[in-house]
C-alpha cells in the first residue's frame, strides 16, 4: 500500500460534488481498484465456487443475502 505522499487537491466546482471528488482521487482509486480486483481473483470470487460464503462475484446483487446494499436485515 503506498504511503501518504501527496497533499490534498482542492475540490473542483462541479454540479455533482461527489462525482467531482471521485475524479479528484482518480490516481489513488485506480491503484486501489487494481488491488481489489487482484484480491477478488485470489478469493476466487470471479468464478462460481459452491463452497464459499461469497459464492460468485457475478452474483453481486445477491451475495449472501444479508449483503444487499439497498437494504438488508442485520
Amino acid at each position, binding site marked *: 500500500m503506498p504511503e501518504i505522499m501527496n497533499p490534498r487537491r482542492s475540490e473542483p466546482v462541479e454540479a455533482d460534488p461527489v462525482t467531482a471528488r471521485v475524479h479528484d482521487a482518480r490516481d489513488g482509486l485506480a491503484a486501489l*481498484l487494481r488491488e481489489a480486483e487482484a484480491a477478488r481473483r485470489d478469493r476466487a470470487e470471479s468464478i462460481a465456487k459452491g463452497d464459499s460464503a461469497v459464492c460468485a462475484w457475478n452474483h453481486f446483487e*445477491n451475495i449472501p*443475502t444479508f449483503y444487499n446494499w*439497498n437494504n438488508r*436485515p442485520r
Partner: protein
Amino acid sequence: MRGIATVPTYVVMQPTTLCNLDCSYCYLPMRREDRRMPVEVAEAVASAVRPWSAAGRFSVVWHGGEPLAAGREHFAALLRPFGPEVEHHVQTNATLIDEAWCDFFATHDIRVSVSVDGPVARNTDRVNLAGKPAYDRIRRGIDALRGHGLPFSALCVVGRPSPGLATELYAYFLELGCDVLGVNVEELEGVNTRDNRHSAAEVTAFWAELVGAWRRDPRIHLREVEWSLRYVGAVLDGTADDVLPRRLDPIPTVAHDGSVVLLSPELAGFSDPRYGDFTSGNVLTTPLAEILAGAVGTPWIREFLDGVDACRAQCPYFGFCGGAHAANRYFEHGRFDGTVTDHCRNSKIGLLEGVLDHARDHEPTAV
C-alpha cells in the same frame, strides 16, 4: 432506480421470534417470546418462490429472533417445502452452534453468517437474558464451524467509531477466518433508541482506516469496501448510472405468523397509529406474488417512494446509496418521506468519503 420490483431476489423468514440473547442494541420486539412459524407459512412461501428460483438464483434468509432457537426438528420441517434450487442462509448469534448444528448446516447446504462484534472486549453489548457476556458461547459456536470446515460470513456492529478500532476489528476477523464481513454502525431503530450520531470526521476516519487495514491483507470480502469500489469504479468508467438496480428489491420479510413486511425487515412487529402494522398482507391468505404486485397500495410504501424521489433529487450520494432505508427514515424521522438519516451519514456518506480520503492519501508516487 424507480419503483419496486415485483420479483424479489430473496425472502427473509422468521422461524421464531425468540432470541436467547438480549443484546442492548437489538431492534427486535418480542425477542423474549417463542412464537414459532407454522409449517403452513413455509409451504406458502415455498410455493410462491418456486418460479422465481427456477428462473435464477434465489435465496431464503432465516433470520430471527435467533433462528437456531427454533430447534433442528422444527427448522428441518420449515426447510422441507423448498425445492433444492433455493439457497438457504441463516443469520445467527452462533451461541447454539454445536456438532449437531454443523451437521445440519452441511446436510441442508445452509450458508451461515454469524453476528460478533470483534474481540471479547468489543462484545459487551452482546449479553444473555441474565445480562451475562455471551462472547465465550459465540466463540465456541464459531470454533465449531471452523472445526467442521464450514465457511461463514460475519456481521459486526460498531457502537462508536474511534481511532484504532477499524484496525483492531479487521485483524480480529482475519484471525476468525470469515470469508465475508459486513460492518454495521449501530442504528437507532426498532426498540433500540440509543443515539447514533457521530461526527462526520469520526466516521470518515473509521472507514478510511478500515480500507487501509483491508488493503494490507484483503483476504476477506469486505462488504462496505467492495460496494464503495464498485461505485467509484463505475464513476471513473462513466457507468455510474448502471450501478443501482433498476427497481428496488422488495425484500419481503415473512414474520412467524405469515405476515409480510416489505423493504425493511426492521419494521416487522411494529405498528403506528398513522401507518398501521406496516404489513402488506399475509402469505396464509394471499399469494406472495400478489402481495408484491400490490406493494404500492400499502400507504407507508407510497410515502417511502416519495422519500426515495426526494433523495434522488437532493442528495449527491444517491447514485451510491439508492436512498435512505425505510426503517431508518421511520425510526429517525417518524415518517418515510424525509431524506438523509444518521444511518446515511454513518454508513453511506462517511463510508464513501472515507474510501476517497484513503485513496487521496495513498496515491502512487511517480517513478
